[in-house]
């Protein structure tokens, strides 16, 4: 079989929307007869612009659109507009000038009409330059469907964010807290039998905790995000990363955990510290994220579990995680 290679250049035009799937079709014509075309799905991503759901310092829901000047000269950002369904919102930029390599975040308020799964489009308009478009989805759950993570300094004695399980042999309280360095997940498990015979990536088969995290609120990303685990193994408290934020199998992690067992009280406490530096694109200043917790239990008859949220034990699905905000 003989072949030749041809390079096809593909570049975004003024109407290209980042994050939207399209098709690239390549065909060939031989004397008026056509070869079967090759069709591939393509999606654009841009260093020039990113956008994601955040809570502003005033506690309002917004899309934070970040413009990065990828050119070699100063660029003036004349406007940022966003379309949420039928509603158009304009965020003031006051003609801000962005130096080469620098970024300018602009918070675009999410209108009250935006509910679960509202698609939005953000436009960056730069003077004398192209219009940059990106797209995304926002979900704004009701207040009572959002779990609050308080400051780390207040975690001891704070009421649990959630309690799962009612059986006398297994139940758990989940408490979330945060600092500028990490998200802290505290799980206090009431378990009559503490049993963990595995280590490393296999700890999920014994008594352990799994925590999954994704950017934005549930349903805003197709990514399942990252997944961590902690257990009291034969060598002591062990932290593992099952999956990193880019979907790769985990190897090393900067996450730490303490796990203590009180046999007289039949309680095991897991406290996991998950550094933001390892959770990008999640960042503390976004003040929101999606979290799910699984408590694994094996009393010798095989693994069972309790879940706060879903998306861990069966399909890996961040749409089933819990909406969490970082509160002062």
């Amino acid at each position: 079989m003989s072949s030749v290679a041809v390079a096809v250049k593909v570049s975004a035009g003024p109407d290209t929307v980042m994050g939207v799937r399209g098709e690239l079709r390549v065909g060939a014509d031989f004397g008026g007869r056509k070869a079967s075309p090759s069709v591939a799905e393509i999606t654009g991503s841009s260093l020039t612009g990113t956008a994601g759901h955040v809570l502003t310092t005033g506690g309002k829901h917004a899309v934070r659109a970040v413009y990065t000047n990828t050119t070699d000269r100063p660029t003036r950002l004349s406007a940022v507009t966003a379309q949420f369904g039928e509603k158009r919102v304009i965020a003031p930029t006051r003609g801000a000038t962005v130096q080469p390599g620098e970024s300018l975040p602009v918070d675009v308020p999410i209108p009250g009409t935006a509910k679960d799964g509202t698609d939005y489009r953000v436009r960056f308009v730069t003077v004398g330059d192209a219009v940059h478009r990106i797209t995304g989805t926002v979900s704004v759950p009701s207040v009572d469907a959002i779990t609050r993570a308080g400051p780390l300094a207040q975690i001891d004695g704070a009421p649990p964010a959630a309690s799962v399980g009612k059986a006398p042999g297994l139940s758990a309280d989940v408490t979330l807290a945060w600092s500028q360095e990490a998200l802290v997940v505290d799980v206090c498990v009431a378990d009559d039998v503490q049993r963990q015979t595995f280590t490393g990536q296999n700890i999920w088969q014994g008594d352990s905790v799994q925590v999954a995290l994704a950017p934005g609120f549930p349903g805003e990303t197709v990514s399942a995000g990252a997944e961590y685990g902690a257990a009291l193994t034969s060598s002591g408290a062990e932290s593992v990363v099952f999956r990193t934020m880019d979907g790769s199998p985990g190897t090393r992690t900067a996450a730490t955990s303490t796990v203590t067992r009180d046999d007289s009280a039949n309680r095991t406490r897991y406290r996991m510290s998950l550094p933001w530096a390892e959770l990008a694109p999640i960042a503390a200043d976004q003040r929101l994220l999606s979290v799910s917790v699984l408590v694994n239990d094996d009393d010798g008859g095989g693994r069972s579990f309790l879940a706060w949220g879903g998306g861990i034990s069966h399909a890996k699905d961040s749409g089933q995680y819990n909406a969490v905000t970082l509160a002062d």
Partner: protein
Amino acid sequence: MHGAQVVTGKSALRPVKSTRSSLTLTPAQRVVVAQHYGDAARAGSKAQGYRLSGDGANTVDVQLYNLNDVPMTGSLHADADNGWRTAIAQPQVTIPRCRRWPWP
């Protein structure tokens, strides 16, 4: 055969019937066009499509395979939706004839 498994009753597998296709491919249809993407573009492509940069030109390698025993000369064309622009520096191509495997 391993073990003592005994199969009784009707097999779920149906016998394969030999069929003869009457489809005749044109010489142009015996040219296969295939797009190839690098590792960075392929990451997450099953869920989201091949990832291209919106900040500059992307190069997609297109391979044309000739299954004919004569050289094929023609032209390549590309188009995309969502506002993507395409360009081919040298759309005219000649693909050498398919070389038969030199059986002894």
